[in-house]
C-alpha cells in the first residue's frame, strides 16, 4: 500500500532550513518541512527575574511554542497559551536539555520562542529542528544538535514524517520523536493511537535514520549562513 502523496515509507517531505532569519535575536532559524513552517528565536543568556527563578548552578532554559492565529488547518486559533501549547513547550524544552551545556551561565536564562505561520502536521518536531539551529547560531555550547521527526502508522505500516492528510486517515498513529544526533539518544517520545510494541521499535529505528538526514540539513543551514558572509 502506498502513501497518499506517493512518498516511500522512509521518505521525509521536502525540507528547507535557514539560519539567522531574525536579526534582533541572538540566534534564529526557520525550518520548513512539507507545509509546516517553524520560526525559532533564541534570546540569551540574559538576566533572569524574578530572582527566585534563578539557578546558581546553571542557566535556565525556557521554551515557548505558539501557533499564529491563522496557522491552523481549521478555524482561527485564539491567541495566547493553551493547555496544548504549554505541554508542547514543556516537551520541547526536555527534548533539547540533554544536548545543551548550561553550566557556563549560572543565574541566567536562555529564552526560546517558536512561532508557526503555517502548519500541516509535525509542528512540534519542526520547532525542535529550528530551535536546534537557532541555539547553535546563538553560540550556546551544545554536545550535539537535536533533530526531530514524527513516525507512525499509515495504512497499517510504519512510516516517517506523517502529513496532515495521513494523520487524518483512519487508524493513523502519531509518534513524535527527537534524537540527539551524535549520541543517538531519544529525548522526545510521545504517542497517540494504538500500536504494537514491535512497530514502535521499528518506528524509532526509522525515525533515528531520518533524523540523521535532518542533521545534515541543519548543518548545511548553519554553514551557509557563515560561508556567504
Amino acid at each position: 500500500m502506498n502513501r497518499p502523496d506517493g512518498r516511500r515509507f522512509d521518505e521525509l517531505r521536502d525540507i528547507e532550513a535557514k539560519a539567522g532569519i531574525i536579526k534582533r535575536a541572538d540566534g534564529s532559524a526557520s525550518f520548513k518541512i512539507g507545509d509546516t513552517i517553524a520560526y525559532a528565536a533564541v534570546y540569551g543568556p540574559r538576566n533572569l527575574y524574578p530572582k527566585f527563578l534563578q539557578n546558581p548552578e546553571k542557566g535556565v532554559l525556557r521554551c515557548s511554542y505558539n501557533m499564529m492565529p491563522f496557522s491552523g488547518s481549521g478555524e482561527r486559533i485564539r491567541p495566547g497559551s493553551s493547555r496544548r501549547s504549554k505541554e508542547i513547550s514543556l516537551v520541547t524544552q526536555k527534548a533539547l536539555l540533554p544536548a545543551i551545556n548550561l553550566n557556563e551561565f549560572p543565574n541566567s536564562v536562555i529564552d526560546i520562542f517558536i512561532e508557526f505561520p503555517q502548519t500541516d502536521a509535525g509542528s512540534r518536531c519542526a520547532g525542535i529542528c529550528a530551535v536546534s539551529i537557532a541555539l547553535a547560531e546563538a553560540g550556546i555550547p551544545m554536545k550535539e544538535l537535536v533533530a526531530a521527526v514524527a513516525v507512525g502508522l499509515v495504512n497499517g505500516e510504519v512510516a516517517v514524517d506523517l502529513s496532515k492528510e495521513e494523520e487524518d486517515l483512519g487508524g493513523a498513529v502519531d509518534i513524535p520523536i527527537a534524537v540527539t544526533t551524535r549520541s543517538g539518544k531519544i529525548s522526545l517520545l510521545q504517542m497517540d493511537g494504538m500500536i504494537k510494541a514491535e512497530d514502535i521499535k521499528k518506528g524509532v529505528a526509522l525515525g533515528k535514520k531520518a533524523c540523521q538526514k535532518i542533521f545534515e540539513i541543519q548543518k548545511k543551514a548553519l554553514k551557509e549562513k557563515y560561508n556567504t558572509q
Partner: protein
Amino acid sequence: MYNNLKLHIINCLNENIRFDGRKNDEHRKITVEYGISKSAEGSARVKIGNTEVIVGVKTEIGTPYPDKPGEGTIMVGAELTPLSNPDFENGPPSIQAIELARVIDRGLRESEAMDFKQLCIKEGEKVWLLLIDICTVNDEGNLFDASSLAALAALKDMHFPAFDGEKIDYKKKSEKKLELKEEPLSVTVYKIGEKYVIDPTNEEEVFVDSRLTVAATSDGTICALQKGGDSALTEEDIDAMIDLSIKKTQELRKHL
C-alpha cells in the same frame, strides 16, 4: 547620556543624515510578499529594512449584529511576539499591541474599504467574519507602517474558502475574492526635537517626542488619525505631518 544621545540624534537629523545614512523622510527598503501562509485565507509578509511583519486573514461564519442584519464584519488583532523583540513578553496583549490593532482596524473600517454587505450570507442569520491577525517576526522599528501595508496586502490576497451553506471547507479555497472599494494605507510621522521623521529604527523610536498616524485612501482622503507619544503637537506640526504622511502613503502604494 539619554539626553546626550538624543541631542546627538537631533544634530544628525538637522543635517538630514540619520544614523543609518537615510534622509529624514526616507523609508528603508520595502518588500511585499503575498500568500505566505497556506493555512490562512489570505496572507502577506512585509519587510521594511529588517523589520518583518506577517498578516493572515481567517474567515469564520457568525451571526450579524442585530442593528446591521445584512452585514458581516472584520476584526483586527496584533501579536507583538517575544520572538521579534527581546522586550516583548508572552501573555495577554500589551497596550501597544491593542493600539496597533485598533489603528489598523480604524483605517480599514472607516475608509469603507470593503462593503460589509458582501459578507452577508443570509440576512439576520449568517455572515462572514474576517479575522485579520498581525504577527511581528522581527521588530527593528516602525511596526505601524509595516502592519498597515501587510494588512491591506493580506486582504488583497484573500480568497473565501469553500462553503456549502452549512460548513466551511478550509482545505479548499473558492474563486471568490474579497472586493475592495478603497485601499487605505497609513504612514506614521514621528517628531524628534523639531524634526519630522518617518520609518524610525528601534534606536530612534526611544527618542520620539510625538507621532501621528494618518491613514488615507488612494485619492488622499484621510480615513483615520492617531496621535501618540508624550508631547503635544502644534497646528503647524499637524499640517506638516499630514502632508508628509499623505505624500509617503502614495509612495508606499507602489509596493502593492
